[in-house]
């Protein structure tokens, strides 16, 4: 905990705050603003939790992008999980998915009707449950970005190694860099810089952002999740904007290497292959997902149980797609805190613990 406390030092935060105010002042004198998108849900939550928007000068705007893995997953995925649960499969999931609306109901509601839906804190629980219930089909809901993909993928190796045949993964993995490309290409978004994720970058490496920098790119600054990390990241971005640079800067170099985590990358490559993936808000993005390779398809729930993941039905009036894309601030959605609250969420951004709407609702109404 000493390690964390060091990055939560109030005096250091206060000094950084002054430097950010000065830099923003310089930018302002040349009539400029800074629109910074954070593309990681953990950043979104940390920014809200530490009240960082509250201390930023008025010409610096932080907007949240498609950084919440639950939110970018379309309702049809939940529908597929519910279909499997109703066929008597035991569904194992991280808690975040439990209350996300599918086309007709949530997993929590399905569980209340008697389905076996187990919340796990670690993917290894799925292996344990499969071993404890050899007569049941166990399906792990495998969603997430690069950070989650690597550890979840080990399930395939473990199950294969132990000869476990009643475990499969319903995958909807997503990759961050292809999403950045879509966001930069959108003329309706005027993003001046990306605050790049901490953990995802630890896997993919800082070099992964090089294609998004340079003359046609924007500053890409990788920051950790502690408040001082985020403030340092913002400071780095403002400095680049003032100097009209667009480079990769790795503020989180205590963890992130230029090449990333080779071991994790190899593991992902061994079991998974690229696939076009649909994102809520961004639509179909080329090669932005990963699916289980054919050699391991007995662990692919889709193939094993012959189930299709369709688009599903978006809730009426829900603008989560625009929120995910950074086009709409959560508070600008007509449903925010009115028809849509964490208890009666219309869309996933309000229900997921990393959703932008949840962050705004929880911390800054």
């Amino acid at each position, binding site marked *: 905990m000493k390690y964390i406390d060091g990055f939560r030092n*109030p005096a250091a935060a206060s000094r950084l*705050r002054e430097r950010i105010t000065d830099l923003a002042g310089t930018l302002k004198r040349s009539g400029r603003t800074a629109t910074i998108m954070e593309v990681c849900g953990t950043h979104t939550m940390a920014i809200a939790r*530490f*009240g*960082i928007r509250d201390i930023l000068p008025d010409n610096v705007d932080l907007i949240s992008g498609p950084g919440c893995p639950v939110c970018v997953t379309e309702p049809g995925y939940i529908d597929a999980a519910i279909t499997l649960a109703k066929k008597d499969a035991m569904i194992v999931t991280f808690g975040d998915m439990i209350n996300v609306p599918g086309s007709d109901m949530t997993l*929590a509601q399905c569980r*209340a009707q008697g389905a076996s839906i187990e919340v796990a804190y670690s993917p290894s629980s799925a292996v344990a449950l499969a071993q404890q219930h050899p007569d049941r089909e166990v399906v792990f809901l495998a969603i997430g970005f690069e950070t989650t993909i690597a550890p979840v993928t080990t399930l395939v190796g473990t199950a294969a190694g132990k000869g476990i045949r009643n475990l499969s993964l319903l995958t909807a993995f997503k990759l961050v860099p292809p999403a950045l490309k879509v966001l930069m290409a959108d003329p309706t978004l005027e993003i001046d810089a990306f605050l790049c994720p901490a953990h995802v970058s630890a896997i993919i490496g800082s070099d992964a952002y090089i294609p998004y920098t340079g003359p046609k790119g924007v500053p890409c600054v990788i920051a950790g999740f502690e408040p001082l990390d985020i403030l340092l990241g913002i400071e780095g971005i403002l400095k680049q904007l003032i100097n009209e640079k667009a480079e990769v800067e790795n503020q989180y170099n205590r963890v992130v290497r230029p090449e990333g985590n080779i071991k994790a990358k190899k593991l992902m490559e061994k079991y998974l292959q690229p696939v076009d993936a649909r994102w809520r808000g961004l639509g179909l993005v080329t090669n932005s997902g990963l699916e289980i390779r054919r050699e391991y398809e007995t662990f692919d729930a889709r193939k094993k149980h012959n189930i299709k993941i369709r688009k599903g039905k978006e809730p009426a009036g829900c603008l989560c797609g625009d929120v995910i894309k950074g086009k709409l601030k959560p508070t600008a959605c007509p449903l925010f805190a009115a028809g849509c609250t*964490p208890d009666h969420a219309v869309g996933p951004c309000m229900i997921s613990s990393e959703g932008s709407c949840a962050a705004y*609702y929880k911390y800054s109404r």
Partner: protein
Amino acid sequence: MNSDTTIQLAHGGGGRLSRDLINAEIVSRFGQGPLEGLPDAATLPWNSKKMIFTTDSFVVQPLEFPGGNIGDLAVYGTVNDISVCGGTPKWLSMGLIIEEGLSISTLRHILDSIKTAASACGVVIATGDTKVVGRGQCDGLFVNTSGIGEAIDGFNLNQARIAEGDEVIASGNLADHGFAVLAARQNINIGSTLKSDTAPVHRLVEAVQEYACEVKFMRDPTRGGLASVLNEVVENRNIGICLDETDLPFSTGTKALSEMLGIDPLHVASEGRIVMICSHLITEKILTRWRNMPEGTGAMKIGTVINDKNRVTIKTITGGKRIVDVPRGELLPRIC
């Protein structure tokens, strides 16, 4: 959506859904009279005196956890509900629902804990009931305790008296109970430092009797944690409460688990703490008194009542401000 037709675990989590359920189904039927405002215990007229009466059921899993077990928890939980309503606990009832298959030695151990805990609090187990149900029809052991206490002279606890300038005190580290039970249940090993704070608070209450008239509110922050307690205080009032993040007392173990699991410790239960709101004139006096007692060594002033519209906020370490919302529930089922 059918959250209206079926009970979900989140309805029991102490958060907003719990509150909605209780308001819709309990308060609507029984809410007039002593239940009004849902205090931890009812204050009832008894001849010329006032009697404090409360009940609580305990379904914690696992039955034994670092720092306590379902037995002492069941005694302290009810004792504390009476204490924070300004009463001296006197008599307890003990209802046991036992699952077929529970080992007699576990039962003995838990009953011994109940005996020790009751004696430490000066309460008598005056009546009880024992039921056994078939395997799978409960989970090891459920305990219900009801308690009767006598109102201590001088306290005039009333949320309506809370006003701008009052201060918020916590009697020690918060949230250790919830995290300790979770760690025990999930076999999360973060070293041996994290223990439940399960303990009686009656001595802390007795210790401030001298300042009783300046004490406006006391609560033991169980399910839903500090955030739920304080949000309830400001609800429908033209006041707010502002906490200071640097002053919040959390143990290293709680901070570590909270970071690991992404669970806000402000939402997590304590079972041996008091959250008090009092006039700023007596804050230091109470802190001094509490800090000289073993159960109050970690007492801290944690916040101030301010002129704001019914919300709880926190000044974070960056100097920014954010709101402190109530938890949704189902964070940690069956921790008490």
